[in-house]
């Protein structure tokens, strides 16, 4: 790095346990956050609406799954459904209590997702690994079926879809058709930063250590006095909370409306890709994975025609879509071969290299 830790002395335990012990790291993070807020001022609504908002929302979902899969070692394929629970719960809350602040609604909807997550997390006590992954598929299919078959969830709407009504914060519309991308972006950014801060404190504290002990070997964790039932269910609850909030944000601040099909199994896989490509057990990895998996297809969609067209290979939109699938698949395999521990590990290696630069070690 262009800076080293030399000369920064820690004189208290609090300083030693800080998440960012280096002054430069703190400054860097502050600069990134300020830049992220400043992005809203540029007024590039394509960038905000089509790239940044979904990127942040998927990062939040990836953090949620990472808490479960990366930190606690419980493989889950039900993320999409838990996101759906959040979205539908938020819809019910905001239509039942129109006066309630929408931000509170979104945050509260996570608790419903958490409750459902705990129910489907119960089998994790007996089964693990692939068996658990298939068990969470039960959640995926069952909940998706509920979204279709329980008309109460969509207020007996004929279309069977939920739609974000107009809601304001301090008199400015943030949800609904009239909300500008800038205000939506600011709301999403603030909530994602806040929740990431919560997650980061969780994983650095006692709870996070218990999760990691369970991940590394649950029997051993039990022997040193960690209560497995509580720890695993807490992981399911917190993870589903994050996913639920992400799902509510997805519908209310990005799509503006959704059908049950938004939360299908592909959504679950999509989030899992982000977590594994980004790096299991790393919060920054969740952001990197979301960036790569979400932004890569967008970039490919622009690059592939640009590369092929000069050769006179005018290709149809369908062909580009198929090529995109192939390239995404190939890139996933490529990344796994190059660095199975994900982008977060690459980032660490790069940082260490820069830290000792110009010497090899």
């Amino acid at each position, binding site marked *: 790095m262009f800076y080293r830790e030399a000369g920064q002395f820690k004189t208290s335990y609090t300083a030693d346990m800080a998440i960012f012990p280096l002054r430069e790291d703190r400054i860097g993070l502050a600069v990134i956050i300020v830049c992220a807020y400043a992005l809203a001022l540029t007024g590039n609504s394509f960038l905000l609406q089509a790239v940044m908002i979904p990127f942040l929302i998927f990062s939040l979902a990836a953090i949620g799954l990472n808490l479960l899969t990366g930190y606690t070692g419980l493989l889950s394929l039900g993320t999409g459904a838990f996101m759906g629970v959040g979205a539908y719960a938020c819809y019910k809350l905001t239509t039942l209590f129109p006066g309630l602040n929408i931000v509170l609604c979104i945050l509260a909807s996570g608790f419903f997702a958490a409750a459902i997550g705990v129910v489907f997390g119960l089998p994790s006590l007996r089964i693990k690994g692939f068996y658990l992954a298939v*068990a969470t598929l*039960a959640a995926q*299919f069952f909940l998706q079926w509920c979204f279709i078959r329980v008309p109460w969830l969509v207020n007996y709407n004929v279309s069977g879809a939920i739609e974000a009504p107009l809601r304001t914060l301090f008199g400015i519309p943030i949800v609904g058709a009239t909300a500008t991308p800038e205000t939506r972006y600011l709301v999403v950014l603030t909530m994602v930063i806040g929740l990431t801060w919560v997650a980061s404190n969780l994983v650095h504290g006692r709870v996070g250590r218990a999760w990691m002990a369970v991940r590394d070997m649950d029997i051993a964790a039990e022997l040193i006095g960690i209560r497995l039932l509580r720890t695993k269910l807490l992981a399911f609850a917190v993870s589903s909370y994050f996913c639920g909030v992400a799902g509510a944000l997805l519908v209310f601040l990005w799509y503006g409306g959704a059908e049950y099909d938004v939360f299908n199994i592909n959504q679950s896989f999509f989030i899992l890709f982000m977590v594994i490509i980004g790096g299991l057990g790393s919060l920054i990895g969740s952001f990197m994975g979301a960036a790569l998996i979400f932004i890569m297809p967008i970039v490919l969609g622009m690059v592939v025609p640009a590369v092929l067209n000069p050769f006179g290979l005018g290709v149809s939109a369908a062909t580009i879509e*198929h090529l995109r699938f192939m*390239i995404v*698949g190939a890139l996933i395999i490529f990344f796994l071969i190059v660095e199975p521990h994900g982008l977060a590990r690459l980032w660490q290696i790069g940082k260490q290299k820069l830290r000792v630069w110009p010497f090899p070690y």
Partner: protein
Amino acid sequence: MNMLYSIFVEPFVLMGSAPDLLIQTLWEGLVAGVLYALIALGFVLIFKASGVFNFAQGIMVVFAALTLVGFHEMGVPALLALILTIGVMFVLAVAVERVVLRPLVNQPDAILLMATFGLTYFLIGFGELIFGGSPKQMITRELYLPQGSTDLDLLGGLVRFQHIDIAAAVIASLIIAILAVFFSKTRIGRALRAVADSHKAALSVGISLGQIWVIVWFAAGIVALVAGIMWGARSDVSFALQIVALKALPVLILGGLTSIPGAIVGGLIIGVSEKLGEFYWGSLVGGGIETWLAYIIALLFLLYRPQGLFGDKIIERI
């Protein structure tokens, strides 16, 4: 009370009063179960030999069927197309071993699972690019598969047996028998079982892991082809089959991930209970419960027997 009656009494009364309907439902469940078992078999083969939970098995089924139909559409005679498709599955097996498995040897299970996700995406894109995304008709007649149906007079009603379903059951049983003989009697089969027991020990007695993996993936590819032909003959060949293939997962965990008999018994149980559940109880909650019933059954079952019906007992040590 009314609710309890309609759950616990009415369906059984219906079963008793119309046994022909019951037999028809059971038969359909059995056939679906055989086909689930065929797909699950592909998973088990690969999982036993390489420890990879091959998520791409579902798309391999679609891909194999698409290739077969695609070749035939290009004007290749049906039987030659079948042989060519088998060739394609072999090339695929070699490619997977070279490009995916070999560089990732000794990585954690989750990483290998992810790699098969990548393979799934690649095959979806590749298949659609070459053969197009629209559903296709399976070339049933050209492959000399029987069509039509027989109505049997059973227990006071007509029960309809589709010939293709009977053929599916027969062919699936044949394949399972062939695999069983192959695994227990041949040299390669024994090598496969050795690899399944322990990679390191197998390597130390001179079994080539790479070779075994190619064989296993090839075998899984052929099983996928058969499953694809059978499913394709029942509906049509499209990427929607992939969701059906996901049904193989509850079958797998019900039967135990490492057991071939488990895959078969699990498939039959899931197929039958799914059809019975949908037919007799589905209307109580609005229908469509087929999409998740299999998973819930498997889930409840796992709570009592975490390793599945025939799976190896899970022993954990610190």
